[in-house]
């Protein structure tokens, strides 16, 4: 009888444990090998001297991605030199959102002169593994891929000059000082990632 209770309790515990849906702050993220707009494969491990990474799930089409485009470029300008580069990943299914084709990614990266990789997550497996839902959706990682921040770039999507909280900058500054991010998780209104239809 006692054994049965133990088994039952174990079953309940398994049933009650939430399904893991992407990474949480404190988790160790996974590396990836994805195709860049220049045709070369890129992994985080390629950045031998990196002190961390700003991984951003982004796309060509979302008005929020457009509103944040210059701010993402500026983040890379400011932090790549300090060893924390931006790594942008587009996971949108071009069959759902035709403007998110690889050719369009190449065109936009050229036009905007991206100094950071803009990778295509064709199988959407990396977006799913990370638990990305929106564009742009940021994951700040330490050198050893510990997730230190997940969420929005800042607190004002419509006006860059009216921002009062720079979540990503604060998280990266903290990372560079060996401190925990002051804010570790935020949410924002945005475009849902365009998933492949099942």
């Amino acid at each position, binding site marked *: 009888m006692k054994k049965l209770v133990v088994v039952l309790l174990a079953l309940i515990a398994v049933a009650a444990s939430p399904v893991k849906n992407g990474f949480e702050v404190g988790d160790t993220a996974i590396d990836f090998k994805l195709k860049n707009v220049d045709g070369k494969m890129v992994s985080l491990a390629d950045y031998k001297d990196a002190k961390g990474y700003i991984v951003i799930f982004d796309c060509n089409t979302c008005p929020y991605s457009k509103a944040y485009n210059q701010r993402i470029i500026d983040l890379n300008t400011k932090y790549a030199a300090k060893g924390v580069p931006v790594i942008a990943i587009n996971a949108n299914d071009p069959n759902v959102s035709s403007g998110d084709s690889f050719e369009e990614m190449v065109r936009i990266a050229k036009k905007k002169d991206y100094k950071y990789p803009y990778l295509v997550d064709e199988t959407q497996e990396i977006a799913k593994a990370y638990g990305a839902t929106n564009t742009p959706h940021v994951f700040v990682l330490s050198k050893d891929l510990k997730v230190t921040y997940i969420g929005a770039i800042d*607190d004002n999507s419509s006006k860059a000059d009216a921002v009062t909280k720079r979540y990503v900058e604060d998280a990266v500054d903290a990372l560079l000082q060996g401190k925990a991010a002051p804010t570790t998780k935020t949410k924002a*209104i945005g475009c849902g990632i365009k998933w492949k239809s099942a």
Partner: protein
Amino acid sequence: MLFALFGVILSVATSAQTINQIKLKDLQKLLTTKTDRVQVINFWATWCAPCVKEIPLFEKLKTDNSNIDITLVSMDFDLDPDPAKVERFVSRKGLKNKVVILAETDPNSWIDKIDKSWSGALPATLIVNTQTGKRKLVQKELHEGDLEKLITEVSN
């Protein structure tokens, strides 16, 4: 002839609904005030293609079912606080459902207060039985038949 034309313009102008700007507390009231009508709340924006695509499902639901209240909550203000853009969209589409604009800033401070499991991505649809507190949140584009299923699920 000219008078007839004016008449048409006037009737179009008067049939367009007034779109109220609401605050978070108004939305929370909608989610918690006990009523026997199921609350169907859709978060959308004029720029959001999958949102625009699924809006006819809500319009059809309005004509089919009188035991529900449908509210289409425009989230346009977060990116562009221009009510005229939403008004033009609503009158162009001739939407009959109630449309409101959520006029709040700093979404990180209130997304969890609408629903903790919501990422903030659009479209999102929240279906609530205020009597029992049962609720369903869908964070993707809806298809034919989905709404009916969800309404039945919260009703039982």
